[in-house]
């Protein structure tokens, strides 16, 4: 049998998606479906003095208009793995950010709902909004996540350094903007509730709605079989979901809400801007003696977000003296939230730019500098890594890219009017995994059904879990169905933190192993079975059969065993528990990567083109070369986008987002994206049975720094502010 794992098989849901038959939340229809539209605040801070809904209520087709004056009191959602839930919407007259939901309108068509929403008149009493990180009135929290690092003696480290560089790096707000507009459809049947939602975590939606609407979790079903992307926007249960569920209860009909693109900018989180300072000291031969990093980023009033932007400095390099400091400032802004590679995406830009500046100051090749400071063991715990192929990433990536052709002097490479620059950056992505469950069932015909309430936000979860189950059960992939996206299935955590494949994969693997064990239990005393009395370790599975290790003749087919024992279906559960460094005696490693970029700059017109990207990735075991490569390619596009395009602009006076459309908020078009070369290096990680490390975010991180470093190499100009635009490059 050919290897199922690793093979770049096509997505099992590809045909459904390209033929339009995959049912995304905004495709869901019900008889009597009503449609909702939101009214959003047009000021950033203050109170609603008056709200007049009469014209909206009188508009054709309108079923209801709910405001803070008519809404029931709702509890705040629960504490979650990712922190507190967002506050419940429309509970009082206070306005905490521009774009805050102030009313929901329900009508018999989306157009009528939207028109009626435009007729709601709101008068505000405004106060001066807090919009600036530097505003002295703003509340600042030091060390908000308790992750500030103090290792060694930073002052002594700098004192011993020959060369010190220091820079301030800033990144702007970015908005996740998955292609699929976030949608919710809610239907009540008495006290039970069905919700279709663009979520990355169905169980969180279930738990949250149960608490908010005071109904048992057992009566709530959340469905998300297909989600049109997320990039983190679907990790939390945002207030618009609550409003839709509330509206459905009010009108006694199914209600659908599809956020508009402008609403996507204020309703479902964003990567917050950051100001970071990195200071590095090294000996003349390039040994890092000290790192001092601090970062500040904003958070919304009365809400929370996790963005320790300086933390990446703690573990990226083998350096004995490190200090990291993070601060969070409360502003009148829509709440930030995780966006693909939260904190790492920002922090890595600063850190890896600073490393490049250090290399330049030392007159050392940036690759060589990084090699010299490779962290042999986890710098924080001192434990050896469970796996770390960063040096192979450097070596193989550089080879593939042709790094040796780089001439060190900035501006020394050109082709016609184009200045050419080579730049690189390294990534050490943190490991993340949380408990997860899956259930595997074997049918009488020997085919299998495996499921878990996870989501596939485009990452390929359906496919790789089908492969894993097929391998663990010894079945052809065509004999396995994997299903997800339903809160009635076994518990799964969020698709986030690059942690789902590991968590779910190990749960699927365990469930399948248990299932094989249960099959052996059936024949334990079966005189007719060649497998009688055998234990899991005695057997292997292949082609729908269980047989003795090394002796294929001594075995039998699942279908024969089940038939003989009159068992219609056999099911087993698996629960994966994250590996712990303390137990393993190894530091559980995340993915590593080295990014190499060639840029071209027309210094006259300020044009910047990324000409080539090579990403060398240690993601542990690669389950499917094709979907894993797609993750890195997609991440690379996201990284180029962060480097050169994305910039959510908030009006300083009003707190309104000034470019909340795809006309104004730039993301790259195909013509901006060059050839993207991806190579996987490294070995299966021994920390978990399936050996993966998660490749969802490592693809994005590092691009911004690599591009900025390449720009410096091309032009001699150091760009410390993202995005890098024409006006910064006219030399």
């Amino acid at each position: 049998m050919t290897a199922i794992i690793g093979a770049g098989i096509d997505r099992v849901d590809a045909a459904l998606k390209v033929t339009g038959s995959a049912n995304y939340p905004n495709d869901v229809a019900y008889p009597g479906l009503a449609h909702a539209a939101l009214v959003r605040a047009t000021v950033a801070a203050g109170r609603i003095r008056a709200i007049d809904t009469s014209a909206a209520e009188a508009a054709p087709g309108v079923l209801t208009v709910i405001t803070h004056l008519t809404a029931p009191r709702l509890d705040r959602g629960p504490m979650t793995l990712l922190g507190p839930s967002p506050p419940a919407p429309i509970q009082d007259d206070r306005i905490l950010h521009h774009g805050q939901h102030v009313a929901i309108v329900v009508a018999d068509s989306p157009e009528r709902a939207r028109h009626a929403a435009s007729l709601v008149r709101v008068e505000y009493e405004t106060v001066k909004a807090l919009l600036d990180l530097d505003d002295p009135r703003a509340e600042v929290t030091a060390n908000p996540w308790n992750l500030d690092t103090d290792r060694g003696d930073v002052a002594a480290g700098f004192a011993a350094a020959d060369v010190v560089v220091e820079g301030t790096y800033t990144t702007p707000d970015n908005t996740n903007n998955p292609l699929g507009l976030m949608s919710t459809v809610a239907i009540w049947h008495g006290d039970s509730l069905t919700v279709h939602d663009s979520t990355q975590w169905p169980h969180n939606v279930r738990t949250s709605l149960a608490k908010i609407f005071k109904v048992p979790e057992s009566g709530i079903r959340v469905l998300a079989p297909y989600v049109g992307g997320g990039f983190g926007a679907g990790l939390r249960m945002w207030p618009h979901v609550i409003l839709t569920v509330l509206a459905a209860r009010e009108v006694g009909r199914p209600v659908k809400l599809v956020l508009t693109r402008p609403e996507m900018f204020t309703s479902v989180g964003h990567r917050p801007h950051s100001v970071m300072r990195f200071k590095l000291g090294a000996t003349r031969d390039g040994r890092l003696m000290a790192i001092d990093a601090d970062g500040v980023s904003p958070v919304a009033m009365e809400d929370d977000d996790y963005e320790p932007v300086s933390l990446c400095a703690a573990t990226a390099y083998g350096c004995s003296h490190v200090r990291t400091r993070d601060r969070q400032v409360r502003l009148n802004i829509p709440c930030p939230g995780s966006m693909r590679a939260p904190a790492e995406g920002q922090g890595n830009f600063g850190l890896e730019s600073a490393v490049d500046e250090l290399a330049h100051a030392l007159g050392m090749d940036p690759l060589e500098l990084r090699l010299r400071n490779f962290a042999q063991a986890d710098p924080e715990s001192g434990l050896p890594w469970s796996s770390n192929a960063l040096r192979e990433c450097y070596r193989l990536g550089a080879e593939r890219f042709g790094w040796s052709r780089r001439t060190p002097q900035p501006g020394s490479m050109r082709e016609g009017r184009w200045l050419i620059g080579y730049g690189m950056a390294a990534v050490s992505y943190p490991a993340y995994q949380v408990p997860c469950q899956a259930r595997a069932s074997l049918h009488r015909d020997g085919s299998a059904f495996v499921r878990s309430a996870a989501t596939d936000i485009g990452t390929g979860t359906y496919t790789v879990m089908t492969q894993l189950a097929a391998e663990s059960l010894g079945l052809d992939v065509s004999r396995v169905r994997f299903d997800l996206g339903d809160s009635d299935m076994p518990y799964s955590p969020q698709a986030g933190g690059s942690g789902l494949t590991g968590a779910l994969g190990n749960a699927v693997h365990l469930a399948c192993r248990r299932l094989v064990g249960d099959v052996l239990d059936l024949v334990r005393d079966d005189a007719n079975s060649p497998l009688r009395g055998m234990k899991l370790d005695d057997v292997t599975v292949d082609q729908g059969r269980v047989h003795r290790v090394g002796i294929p003749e001594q075995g039998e087919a699942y279908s024969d065993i089940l038939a003989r024992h009159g068992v219609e279906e056999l099911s087993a559960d698996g629960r994966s528990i994250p590996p712990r460094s303390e137990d393993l005696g190894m530091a559980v490693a995340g993915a590593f990567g080295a990014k190499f970029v060639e840029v071209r700059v027309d210094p006259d017109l300020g044009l910047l083109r990324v000409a080539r990207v090579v990403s060398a990735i240690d993601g542990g075991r690669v389950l499917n070369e094709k979907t894993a490569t797609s993750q890195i390619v997609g991440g690379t596009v996201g990284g180029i986008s962060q480097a050169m395009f994305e910039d959510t602009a908030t009006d300083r006076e009003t707190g309104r987002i000034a470019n909340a459309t795809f006309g104004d908020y730039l993301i790259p078009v195909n013509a901006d994206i060059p050839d993207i070369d991806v190579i996987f290096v490294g070995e299966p990680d021994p920390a978990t049975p399936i050996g993966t490390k998660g490749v969802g975010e490592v693809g994005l991180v590092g691009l911004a720094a690599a591009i900025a470093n390449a720009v410096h190499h091309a032009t001699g100009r150091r760009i410390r502010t993202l995005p890098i635009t024409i006006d910064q490059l006219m030399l």
Partner: protein
Amino acid sequence: MRPFEYVRAVDAGQAVALVSADPDTSYLAGGTTQLDLMKDGVLRPARLVDVTRLPLSGVTSTGSAIRVGATTTMEELAADPVVIERLPFIREALLLGASTQLRNLATIGGNLLQRARCRYFRDPAVEACNKRDPGSGCAAITGFARMHAILGTSDHCIALHASDVAVPLVALDSVVHVQGVDGPRGIPLTEFYRPPGDTPHIENVLRHGELITAVEVPLLPEGARSHYLKVRDRVSYEFALTSAGAALVIQDGLITSARVALGGVGTLPWRSWEAERVLRDAPATRETFRAAADAALEGARTLPGTAFKVDLAKRTLVRTLETIAGARA
């Protein structure tokens, strides 16, 4: 969007009568400006008169000029053999605009009348916009100005005219043919647009209900070389930060005829007679081009967000002229 009535015009006379009689009625061509702004609540007409079925489409050539029917799409005009042969910078400007899908819908008449891309104009939640709501102020001047004008601005409005194809069209002294209730008239494109002054809501000299029927575009003289260069924040599907359209006739190293217009910088498609004056009868050298660019941008008024555009526009024009001069050899 406000509910509206849709009428498909059967002939030009009917269309003109319908729209002229009612300030709350507008024309609809490809809809890529009109419907966008209606969905955003910026335009709220009670009725639309669709002109796309009127016999106004197609390009005819008279030998010294082409006549472009108002409902000819951007893609159709770009594919016209005379345009390809004799007016290549029009084709360049068209194909660097919008996207293929949009260009298949968007008409030339509609393109000339496209509305400001200003973010503050396009969001009715913003109170201060003199163009949308005369007398309310200008949010762009205190907000983010980048895709905004630096030439022809006023204290009341700095919105850009973002059309690409209007740049070569204005350089060529094209004439807009219109039909009104009082009959037809021709308006030189150089006199078609009005600078914002203190009435930025009035963008051109059309009377309400006047229908654009055609645009007449003189051909370039034999031996002329032209080029349109567009500089923008991404490679495609984005408006210009700066652009330049120019046509030169160069004989024995001397420029004998020059047409120059700029995009991305003007409140109207910006014909630069100043640059043309510098170029005419001057040697086709970098120094001349630089002097022309300096002349073209004289009088630019900037804000912090648009300050870089002066230099960028100059470099864009110099590069355009150099490309033309180089292509001659």
